[in-house]
């Protein structure tokens, strides 16, 4: 299948906040590393113009906090960590997401039928 890496943009918009929260919950990280992680996970290339507003929104909502730190020889980077509220949100949303996608999947024709 060649639909990989070019997901409909509204799918990405829906899943991005939760995915970004999950990536930052794995370990403290910064913007570009989050983008790389999402790409490795097979979600495709997320542009900076899409990613940073999501990161800032999550921070505004109190789910993450950030601090600027000097890179080795390079420019400073903004590192994000998940707050306690962020972990709680991630746990709750993950449960809801599985339920939601499970129900949506049950509604779709099976893979054999759609071939």
């Amino acid at each position, binding site marked *: 299948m060649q639909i990989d890496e070019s997901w409909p943009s509204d799918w990405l918009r829906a899943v991005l906040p939760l995915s970004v929260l999950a990536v930052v919950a794995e370990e403290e990280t910064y913007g570009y590393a989050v983008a790389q992680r999402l790409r490795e996970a097979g979600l495709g290339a997320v*542009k*900076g113009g899409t990613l940073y507003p999501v990161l800032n929104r999550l921070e505004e909502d109190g789910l993450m906090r950030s601090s600027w730190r000097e890179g080795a020889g*390079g420019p400073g980077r903004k590192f994000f960590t998940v707050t306690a509220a962020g972990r709680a949100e991630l746990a709750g949303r993950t449960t809801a997401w599985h339920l939601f996608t499970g129900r949506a999947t049950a509604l779709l024709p099976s893979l054999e039928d759609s071939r």
Partner: protein
Amino acid sequence: MITDLDTYRRDLILALRVRDVPGDRIGEIVAEVESHVADTGEDPHEAFGPAREYAATTTGLARSRWGWTDLAVAVAAGAAGWLLAGGLLGLVSGTSLGPLRPWAAVALGLAVAAPTVVHLRRTTSAVRDPRTGRDMAPFPRWAPWLLGGLLALPVAVAAVVLVAFS
């Protein structure tokens, strides 16, 4: 590449300024763009889209419209300038500005100018770089001289003319 980033950064600061975004927030957004572009080597235009659109999507704000406060500031600045120029000219030439004595016009001009300048300074916070704490869009060193010169020029020309013809 460097010039691309400089242009983008300038456009982005301007686009955020006209949306009345606080200086610290502007610094944060610009630093994110610079840091990302430095990590990826991407073109900022390519990675973040046109500066004006990014400013709109990332803040959710539209360009701020002119309000009554802006009008009041403009009128106050105009009145203060007129009173100061007329008063100073009066002091040089010895004539008075309508019913006002020259020194009274200067005093009134200063009284109007002072709160106007204070208000402008308070509402335009500096664009602070979160990485260094430095001002990202500093007022050029020559700007106060140019502004001062522009204000002083008509007064100086008028004084020369008055002295030459008297």
